């Protein structure tokens, strides 16, 4: 069934969310009203054809200071360059805010990791440079990030910060590559109507050493 494709997207790509575990609800005798879906979520039957913005379904969390920290960090991870705009320019800050503000278990679990991690970044920035992270130079930001960007290489006192960074980078990339600008950066071409589907172009077939077998 279709969920095979969905499972591909989720399981082939690390950092994806875990599949929701089923629960067997206890039964209740007699005719009782149907219980609600996740309280304050978007429900099981949201309007699918409307476009949404962060904040449409549940209130956002970030303070002005947290927003600034997040913007500085997402742009350190995904800066503006030849491949495309910086993460903050395409709404990644708001998408992360929406994520950690959501009422679902996965997102509720991520919330303290992100908020405490942002606080750690600011404390570390202040400790090392006496400035908020957003006001650091690129070199100063990298000095902090280099220490926490790889969990397996982080010194023990920085282990929690490194786990935060890995998590944050996942979230940042998930959001960035969900945008048309991110698609361009990663090399996704599609979501446009075509008259016919030609498959991979000759240069791809040649590079792979294969021929198109469907005529």
């Amino acid at each position: 069934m279709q969920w095979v494709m969905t499972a591909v997207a989720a399981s082939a790509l690390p950092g994806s969310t875990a599949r929701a575990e089923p629960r067997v609800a206890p039964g209740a005798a007699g005719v009782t009203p149907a219980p609600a879906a996740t309280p304050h979520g978007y429900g099981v039957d949201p309007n699918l054809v409307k476009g949404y913005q962060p904040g449409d379904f549940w209130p956002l969390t970030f303070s002005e200071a947290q927003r600034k920290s997040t913007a500085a960090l997402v742009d350190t991870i995904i800066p503006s360059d030849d491949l495309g705009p910086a993460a903050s320019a395409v709404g990644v800050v708001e998408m992360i805010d929406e994520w950690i503000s959501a009422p679902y278990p996965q997102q509720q679990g991520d919330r303290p990791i992100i908020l405490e991690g942002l606080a750690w970044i600011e404390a570390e920035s202040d400790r090392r440079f006496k400035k908020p992270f957003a006001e650091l130079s690129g070199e100063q930001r990298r000095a902090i990030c280099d220490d926490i960007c790889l969990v397996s290489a982080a010194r023990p006192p920085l282990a929690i910060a490194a786990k935060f960074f890995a998590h944050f980078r996942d979230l940042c990339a998930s959001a960035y590559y969900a945008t048309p600008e991110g698609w361009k950066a990663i090399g996704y071409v599609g979501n446009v109507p075509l008259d016919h589907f030609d498959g991979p172009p000759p240069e791809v077939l040649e590079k792979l050493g294969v021929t198109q077998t469907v005529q």
Partner: protein
Amino acid sequence: MPMISADKARDQYDVAIVGSGAAGGQSGYTLSLAGLKCVMLEAGRSYDPIAETPMFHTPRQAPLMGDRTPDKPFGFYDATVGGGWEVPGEPYTTVHDTPLEEFRWWRPRMLGGRTNHWGRISLRNGPYDFKPRSRDGMGFDWPIGYDDLEPYYTKVEMLIGVYGTNDGLENTPNSPPGVLLPAPKGRAADLLAQKHGRRLGIPITSAHRAVLTRHLDYKTIPAKLHPGNEWARKIVQQAMANRSACFWATACGRGCNVAANYQSTTVHLPPALATGNLDIISDAHAREVTIGKDGRADGILFIDKTTGRETRVKAKAVILAAGSAETVRILLNSKNNAFPNGVANSSGLVGKYIMDTVGASLDGQVPALENLPPHNEDGAGGDHFYSPWWLYQEQKAGKLDFARGYHIEMGGTRGMPGGANPVPSDLTRGSYGSKFKEDARRYFGSFVHYAARGEMIPNEQCYADLDPTVKDRFGIPVLRFHWKWSSHEVNQALHAERTFTALIEAMGGTVRGARVAKPGDNLWKPGSIIHEVGGAIIGDDPRKSVCNGFSQTWDVKNLFLCDAAPFASNADKNPTLTIMALAWRACDHLVDEAKKGNL
């Protein structure tokens, strides 16, 4: 869609149909075009795929980048708008020894049922698949064979539109010339797997999916489907002309507002409704098949969820097409003096022999697919290639430690990203900044995913009965599922793991994720593949089966089970095409018998 409320139902119908998915849709189509007055009950809400399908919407426009949540377990844009793994107020219970054997039950509640969500993979059962017991001594033979169903497979393929190729492989039937639509071109990862699969002896070829790769030939097909019925021909012609060919974008699981793929709501129901012979009542939760004094089914008792009232529709014949386990639930709850253990259950076999598909999968990363020049691989919104089961002879020679086969469904595509980090941190080694963006571009499209979909053998320990204490919010006893895998399923899943490992490594790639620690670890939970079938199997002996070869219950001759409940085996081939072919055949039989006055 023209729908009626429960209070607008006629006093009497020819046929009452429970369910509006592949089985109900096909039944409603066949019977209404044969001139019978039908009423269809759907437990969920009405649904309009033309107005409600999010075509071209980006993950950016969805909450949480469209990611899955408990409210939308297959992602925000999944077409399922009601029900799912949990239906509030309608629990079920499970009995199992290990978490691996906890049955999961996917219950969409909406017009069109599962056909809104499904993968559109449309495979014919082969001749072996109807006679498994004769081949290996296990399970049950069907009372019908491939030749009985072949004309109906062909008709269904012509009606719904299925792409694919005829490869002449063992137990993988060809369709008659001109029936299949052109197969879509292979994607990069498909072609690479095909090339290396050849060396391993794994035949990788075009999948068969219900997607229109070109406009249906609406001028000639309807006459082949309804010979001698000019009126039906015109109605079907109009409905077919209204469907568009695929424009190679938007995943099929969102539904399709140009009707380029099969959904009951875009293919079966429009012509059925155009006959004027079909009334559909949504929000109608079926409770019982009602039995008249003469011992025949005379209608359905249901809860009108819009009012909470118990309501009846009357009919001269009844079709249950509610999804196999729902059909079991309804039968077991239909108790009366004549049927103290449930309608059509004199054999005691209602609820027995439930099967799901054996699911196992493995991911890999293939360096050859890194840094490919960007190109569009959206394609037909689902799988283009697959591998039919290929080791029949080895199995026959006793070289394998399991009895039945699996086919391979394959993912590996430069499909739309979003909602998950496309760059695994173990590969990027902590990169961030422009290096990270380069890594993302490098690895995008280099991941492959192989999924086994295998045949499970029916056993005595996989069944459903009524839970003695738990009731749903309407006070109706709920199903309780019991499950036990056999070594055949466990060993088959291990074989799949070895096959996928060999294929990934042959492509020069590496397997990702944990290997199987102990047998059974890589089996998906029962029900997870959403192919549960059986529970009221067909056979040629009323003591050993619930239905005859026309899916007509032995005990109540005007009661037909048109979903997968009558399946006596669950071939690796996805069940939907067979459900439709069986339903069409059963309905033709129903019409013939009604004409003869035999119902």
